[in-house]
């Protein structure tokens, strides 16, 4: 029987198998940041264990960083200390760190692909559940807890039981105004938030084949929101072209050799998956969420469904929405375009293209937070910044920002925020805040109109 893309990458990284137990899986690249690494460094130090392969670790500061005045000392004492500790730990252990202000600094899942750290066929981990993003390259990439961060520090390996395989196929032609974010929100709304638990998910079909790397990253990023530890897309010419020439990508002959290997990775035609789903691209419309988990999504033109489950009702009560209600024309005061899901250059191009010549509604606070310094530079160089400035949008400096509101970028109590991030959990964007997930296009349109509109009607 043939092998899946996931099987091929996994099997080539198994160091050994414990009888009736997990496998030792070798990890090629380990990404770290300030929030989930300090306790792991402490643990190693307490136990007198050295970092085994510091050259395979890349560090950045992103979760807890301000998006204004990054050149000045951080005001919040705890945040400042956490960043100082990251710097000290990296220095002590000879780990490359792209700290705040560095030209390569950014959200871990934006900067690593940009630098060519992310490559097909490798295994990658990070103490962050959205590490699934890197699966867009045909890598096995997944989020881990801090105890596992310590394990990788100590041994460059993890003890894991091989997950089951799942494939989601989407074929057909996407409608006008339907972006990769809508595709993944649609899939999660159909499958629910725990359908992928215990699985690694491969996305297949012409919809993903036709997507840019940025789009594929948006899709794989949200795999964890249906419970899947990771998502993967077969590497192809689009992937190779993206990786080529980047800072840490293989060069010259070595690159050609790698490409020859990467071409062997896609799933064999006779491979079997443990679970399969397929969807028709024509059925997907611009999406929006109405509840407090990412599976609670509808087409923007639909109404909130009926459900008698008490947890569903609790969720609607938190959002102050009613069963059967449409979200069209809901006034919105906050819009956030950013996060590891949608803060790449393509996302800002989509937003700028819509915003050009228009003005932000007076009631709206609109934050645009690039995923990295490189994206920020590109926004300025391509002239997008002036479009945003003229329309009254506020371009901030890179970081995770209002996606998880660890820094000062918080949405006030009771306010709705149309957000391009990945989670609409209670209080995720600030205590009492109400998050509505959407694509950068829907977010931009909301900011201009000051309310949710049916973008598909406007486009067609």
């Amino acid at each position, binding site marked *: 029987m043939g092998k899946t893309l996931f099987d091929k990458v996994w099997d*080539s*990284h198994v*160091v*050994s198998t414990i009888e*009736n*137990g*997990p496998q*030792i899986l*070798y990890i090629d690249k380990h990404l770290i940041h300030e*929030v*989930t690494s300090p*306790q792991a460094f*402490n*643990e190693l130090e307490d*136990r007198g*264990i050295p970092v*085994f392969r510091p050259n395979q670790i890349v560090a950045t500061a992103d979760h*807890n960083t301000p998006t204004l005045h990054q050149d000045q000392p951080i005001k*919040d004492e*705890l*945040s400042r*200390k*956490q960043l100082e500790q990251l710097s000290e730990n990296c220095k002590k252990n000879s780990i490359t760190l792209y700290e705040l202000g560095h030209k390569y600094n950014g959200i871990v899942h934006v900067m690593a692909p940009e630098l060519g750290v992310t490559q097909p066929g*490798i295994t990658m981990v990070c*103490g*962050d*559940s959205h590490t699934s993003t890197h699966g867009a390259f045909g890598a096995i990439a997944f*989020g881990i807890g*801090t*105890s*596992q961060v310590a*394990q990788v520090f*100590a*041994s*460059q*390996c*993890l*003890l894991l039981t091989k*997950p089951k395989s799942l494939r989601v196929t989407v074929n057909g032609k996407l409608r006008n105004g339907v972006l990769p974010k809508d595709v993944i929100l649609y899939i999660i709304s159909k499958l629910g*938030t*725990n359908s992928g*638990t215990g699985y690694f998910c491969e996305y297949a079909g012409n919809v993903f084949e036709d997507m840019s790397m940025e789009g594929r990253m948006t899709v794989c990023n949200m795999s*964890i929101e249906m*419970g899947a*530890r990771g998502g993967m897309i077969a590497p192809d010419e689009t992937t190779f072209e993206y990786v080529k020439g980047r800072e840490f990508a293989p060069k010259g002959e070595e690159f050609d050799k790698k490409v020859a290997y990467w071409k062997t990775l896609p799933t064999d035609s006779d491979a079997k998956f443990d679970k399969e789903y397929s969807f028709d691209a024509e059925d997907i419309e611009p999406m929006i969420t109405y509840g407090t*988990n990412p599976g609670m999504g509808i087409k923007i033109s639909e109404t909130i469904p009926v459900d008698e*489950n*008490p*947890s569903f009702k*609790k969720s609607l009560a938190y959002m102050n929405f009613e069963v059967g209600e449409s979200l069209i024309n809901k006034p919105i005061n906050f819009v956030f375009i950013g996060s590891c899901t949608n803060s790449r250059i393509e996302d800002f191009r989509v937003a700028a293209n819509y915003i050009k010549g228009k003005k932000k509604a007076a009631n709206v606070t609109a934050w645009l937070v690039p995923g990295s310094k490189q994206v920020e530079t590109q926004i300025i160089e391509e002239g997008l910044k002036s479009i945003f400035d003229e329309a009254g949008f506020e371009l901030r400096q890179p970081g995770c920002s209002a996606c*998880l*509101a*660890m820094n000062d970028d918080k949405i006030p109590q009771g306010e709705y925020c149309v957000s391009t991030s990945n*989670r609409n*959990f*209670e*209080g*995720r964007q600030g*205590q*009492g805040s109400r998050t509505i997930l959407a694509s950068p296009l829907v977010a931009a349109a909301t900011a201009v109109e000051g309310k949710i509109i049916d973008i598909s009607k406007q486009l067609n």
Partner: protein
Amino acid sequence: MEKFTTLQSRAIPLHIENVDTDQIIPARFLKATDRKGFGDNVFRDWRYHKDGTINTDFVLNDSKYSGSILVAGDNFGCGSSREHAAWAITDFGFKVVVSSFFADIFKGNALNNGLLPVQVSLAFLSDLMQRVVSNPETELVVDLEKQIISVKDSELSENFEIDAYKKTCMINGYDDIDYLINNKEQIEAFEAQKIY
């Protein structure tokens, strides 16, 4: 890591589905750089109102209920990979979480911190939840060796699954680092001959 063999305790019923790790410990409390003290803020925004006053409607603030077992709704621990969630729950005093479904990363984090995730059937959970809610003095017995969870002095019990390796770790208080470091030579040999 603390050893775990058996536990008899009362339980606290958290009758909510899809409890995500942002609810268990909100992001604003993740600025600490050690593992201790997160219990003060476990379920912070459900336990307290925004003005800092206690939300008496929340089960953790209901003095009727006590114990070191948390009985929670389906799909517990989804969302962020923050191990702070497992630290917060153990720091508060829980040693076992019972649910009909756990998110992968949370489950792994719990096991790495001596917190036992006991996955039971939906029917068992529903029965258990109802008994604990209606009688806060209900005693549960969790036997890891035999992989059985039961309600004391009743017929209600169910077997639960756990990875054999993880079970040994929990019973003996071992963690994965010990195992991995003892296999360094094998890891180095793998590095020398890897095919990709």
